[in-house]
């Protein structure tokens, strides 16, 4: 499998008033085309920092100290190097936690999609924008794209909104999609549907998906590989069965033991 996203030895720290705080410490991670890689770990373990560092959405006081992020063989992030503006919205799409807050409340879905398309597809006409918008919503298994296009975010249900947010991330046909806790705000039924949608999209479009979540069960359902993070380090990674059935690290065992069970 060709590696689409290749993170090697990435170390990132934040400058604070009283010194430096190491946020990522020598992180290695690979995502291949058509592959779903889950990043799991407790709050503050560096999952979101890792996801955001790939697209250069870090706070101003955060700097890359060592390591690289390569996308399809090109270095996009390295110490003193930030070429993420070339890949944001084109090669990489991003889905956030809560779609009720990740869409501009004053804009209809049509405007959201149109804006991204016009920004990244040069000279795209009105008819093409409309056609592609409908197409991508249909890809999101939205049965009534015309109505959804004419709706404001608050007029849609949570699951529908998150589908629109995913559509927005893939409308420009990126190679990699990063989903940052994008199912956390949804109820379990909707979560399952969104996860199923991701699997279908990855299979259909051959994209790579970096799926950040704190939900181990969800990750085990969806992902091909899992990376377990703790204190800014990837403590364990491998195939889902390897990591979950035969965890080698204490930390992973503790995470697994923390999953509530009904038996």
């Amino acid at each position: 499998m060709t590696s689409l996203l290749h993170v090697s030895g990435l170390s990132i720290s934040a400058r604070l008033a009283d010194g430096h705080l190491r946020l990522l410490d020598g992180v290695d991670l690979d995502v291949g085309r058509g592959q779903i890689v889950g990043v799991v770990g407790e709050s503050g373990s560096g999952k979101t920092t890792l996801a955001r560092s790939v697209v250069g959405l870090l706070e101003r006081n955060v700097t890359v100290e060592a390591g690289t992020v390569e996308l399809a063989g090109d270095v996009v992030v390295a110490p003193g190097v930030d070429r993420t503006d070339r890949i944001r919205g084109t090669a990489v799409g991003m889905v956030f936690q809560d779609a009720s807050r990740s869409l501009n409340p004053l804009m209809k879905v049509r405007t959201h999609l149109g804006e991204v398309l016009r920004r990244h597809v040069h000279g795209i006409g009105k008819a093409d924008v409309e056609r592609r918008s409908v197409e991508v919503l249909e890809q999101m298994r939205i049965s009534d794209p015309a109505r959804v296009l004419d709706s404001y975010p608050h007029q849609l249900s949570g699951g529908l909104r998150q589908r629109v947010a995913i559509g927005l991330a893939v409308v420009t046909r990126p190679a990699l999609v990063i989903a940052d806790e994008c199912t956390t705000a949804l109820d379990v039924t909707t979560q399952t549907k969104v996860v199923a949608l991701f699997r279908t999209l990855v299979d259909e479009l051959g994209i790579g998906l970096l799926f950040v979540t704190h939900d181990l069960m969800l990750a085990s359902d969806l992902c091909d590989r899992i990376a377990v993070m703790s204190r800014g380090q990837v403590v364990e990674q491998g195939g889902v069965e390897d990591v979950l059935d035969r965890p080698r690290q204490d930390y992973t065992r503790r995470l697994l033991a923390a999953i509530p069970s009904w038996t």
Partner: protein
Amino acid sequence: MTRVSQLELDLKPAEAPRRSKRTSAFWLAVPIAVVAVAVFVLPLTGLLPAAGQDLNATRQPPGFLSGGSWSHPLGTDKLGQDLLTQFIEAGRLTIMIGLVGAVVAIGPGTLLGLLAGYFRGWVDRVISVLIDAQLALPFILVALAIIANRGSSLPVLFLVLALTGWAVCARVTRSATLAIRERQFVLGLRAAGASELRIVFRHILPNLGGTIVALGTLQVGTAILIESALSFLGLGVVPPMNSWGSLLAAGQDELSTAWWIAFFPGFAVTVLVLLVNLLGDAMLTHYDPRKRRR
């Protein structure tokens, strides 16, 4: 290990949004439009009483009071000048001062607040120091200094209104922008590759709509009241021009003998400022799709 890809993905269609009916903004705009038409169109029709002095009919009460006559529907002042004619003429100037005064304060204030709040860093520090400096100066001192230097005229009045109004607008806009820039959709826009300027002007500015409308309606009222205060001090509108503020000032000496001279301009200022504030409220509701009646 089970895969969930085979689960059904169908959705229940939610209820379709219904079209909103005429909102209260529309019904509030009606009286304001009526006032504007009356004030701007009536003088052109030649229906108003002549503007000259009539020393035989000084301090006449309005037509609906005993001793009044319908040839002077709102009565006359101490020189026998018709008050309705003055009232309409003054209203034109007052409305203009209110609108222009709000625009000159809100325009630069909003722009600076937006830039300070979004870009932070040194941009914010420079603009915030300017805001603090401006707010530290008493308004009347600024007004006196400018008017003493430049004389009293409409452009100078607008300069005073801009200088005394921008800082509050900038500070309010700045804090609102600080809150909006932390919202997730801004991060989403950056992740989708939108440019900074596009985020600021296409996304954050419209989300400040409510704040700006509220500031705008407040500022219209403030501009009218500041103008009235300056006119009262003889620093605002100078004769032969009149505003409701200067009419109010002229009538206040005679409140005990001829109350109607001050009453109608004062009442009009109050009602106009109230209407503009209500209109702002209603526009806010109309403007935000989440608050619209559905």
